[in-house]
């Protein structure tokens, strides 16, 4: 029953390799994150067209519908409205994308390779942050295309290209922090069926902001909600940046939101990630 197998050539090769292997020091946090971002980028490349379609549909539809259907009523003319609305659409385009990030991660970490990741001694948040970093690229593509469409429709940033670029960077920073809400949710709610509900909820949060109309036009109680919504703070700061009227206080509020989101939802996500029972 017990047959001694002759070592075939590959086994001899393996033996030779094993003799030369020596375990190196674990990689640093940055190196681990970039390596995992590379993995996420390869995976994203396979579905790039579908992802882009998904990402662009919403800003395009909103931009056209709101601008041409409601713009006149909201701001006297569609052209006036576009100047105020486009920065808001940029914010919305990025914020809505963060939900997809959470969804991608929740599907991904169900895979067997995450068992291996979790049993390796590198900086564990890299497993999630890698994907989030790669998704920044996705947000950036969405923002750029939306901005180009806006410019084609007649949007003119008062602060020029520099203002627009700075605004997009601020949006990216906020979206990175905001995405941690969805990594937390996707780890808590393991069924992807809840995507519809999450999407409606996020839509409600986006609408309860000053993206579409100024809060000064609203009744007091809703204005109170809109004025504390961090998405309002972001769109105010983004409008300020693109039109050159930004104040330090506006940027400060956004920075504060980013800080709070990271401090609360970052560790929460990691605790849930480590506790996950099966890979």
């Amino acid at each position, binding site marked *: 029953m017990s047959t001694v197998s002759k070592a075939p050539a590959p086994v001899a090769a393996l033996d030779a390799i094993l003799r030369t*292997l020596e375990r190196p020091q674990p990689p640093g946090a940055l190196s681990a994150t970039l390596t995992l971002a590379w993995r996420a980028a390869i995976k994203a490349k396979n579905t790039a067209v579908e992802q882009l379609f998904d990402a662009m549909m919403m800003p395009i539809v909103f931009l056209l519908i709101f601008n041409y259907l409601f713009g006149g009523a909201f701001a006297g003319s569609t052209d006036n409205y576009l100047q105020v609305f486009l920065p808001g659409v940029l914010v919305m385009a990025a914020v809505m994308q963060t939900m997809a990030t959470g969804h991608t991660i929740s599907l991904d970490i169900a895979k067997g*390779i995450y068992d291996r990741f979790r049993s390796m001694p590198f900086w564990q948040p890299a497993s999630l942050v890698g994907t989030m970093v790669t998704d920044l690229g996705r947000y950036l593509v969405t923002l750029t295309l939306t901005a180009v469409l806006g410019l084609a429709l007649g949007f003119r940033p008062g602060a020029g290209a520099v203002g627009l670029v700075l605004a997009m960077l601020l949006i990216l920073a906020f979206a990175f922090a905001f995405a941690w809400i969805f990594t937390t949710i996707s780890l808590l709610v393991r069924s992807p069926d809840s995507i519809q509900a999450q999407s409606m909820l996020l839509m409600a949060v986006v609408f309860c902001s000053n993206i579409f109309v100024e809060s000064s036009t609203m009744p007091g109680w809703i204005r109170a909600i809109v004025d504390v919504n961090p998405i309002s703070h972001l769109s105010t700061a983004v409008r300020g940046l693109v039109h050159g009227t930004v104040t330090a206080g506006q940027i400060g509020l956004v920075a504060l939101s980013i800080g709070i989101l990271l401090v609360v939802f970052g560790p929460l996500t990691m605790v849930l990630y480590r506790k996950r029972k099966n890979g």
Partner: protein
Amino acid sequence: MHSDFAIRTNGLTKAFGKTRAVDGIDLTVTAGTVYGVLGPNGAGKTTTIRMLTTLLPPDAGSAEVFGHDVVREAETVRGLISLTGQFASVDDTLTGRQNLNLLARLTGYSRAVARQRAVELLGAFDLADAGDRMVRTYSGGMQRRLDIAASVLSAPRLIFLDEPTAGLDPRSRNQVWDAVRTVVAGGTTVLLTTQYLEEADQLADRIAVIDNGEVIAEGTPGELKASVGGGAVHVRLLDATQRQFAEQVLTRVLGAPVRPDPDPARLSVSASDPGRAGEALTALTAAGVAVADFSLGQPSLDEVFLTLTAGPAGIATGAEVNAV
């Protein structure tokens, strides 16, 4: 902190709701050996591995890997081990080369070394031609080999293999076994779980048989075989309907009960005396029982397993065999 023990657990316990998946397991694995954890589906094998690989905190008891506590010193433990999970722990949407590259980088190798390791290991595991194909397109055996290649990449001192050959054809299984033997020859400790007794018999220096979250037997394959009694008479009947009659004859002549067996045509009875075995064959023939096959030999691990999991007494005739 040095330790001759690769693994030492003490009353390791994990419950999911009311189910005690692992119920007070004590294991001691000597460094440099292959340890087999044998048990049916749901016996607690994977849960045990998940605790030992720091993926799951135990509810009670403790476990050490090379003297390091898996909970308090999880980070150190992760630096010493590598895990090949039950379901492929490689990414099936990347190529084989990308997988090895990725894991080499995460282990801490430089870009250039990582690339080189990937090439070497693809070659050593007979995957060089498939290196640039997506793992999704690999056969089960190829995925397993890639998985093991990924596990040895980090030069771990202890490798966990959770059912490494489940669902593989015999040729792929032999390739995996060869790889395991090579790794062990290099001094690495291996803990493997399996449902296949042959696999444990082939590879393991020691075996723990677990069932319902408890270790029900532990020892070398030889010891386990000896524990069910010395030799045994194996009879295969031409006609399974004669089983009851044959059982009576064998029990009378050999003075021992027939062990439970899932195959109705197969009977095994402990018998250490070859002379008695001869009498048994004569008695069967005289009684008109048609015998297809008759042999006297060491009990196989299969019998050990069935006997052990059949019930506390082990040899209770007719006991339900619920382990297979």
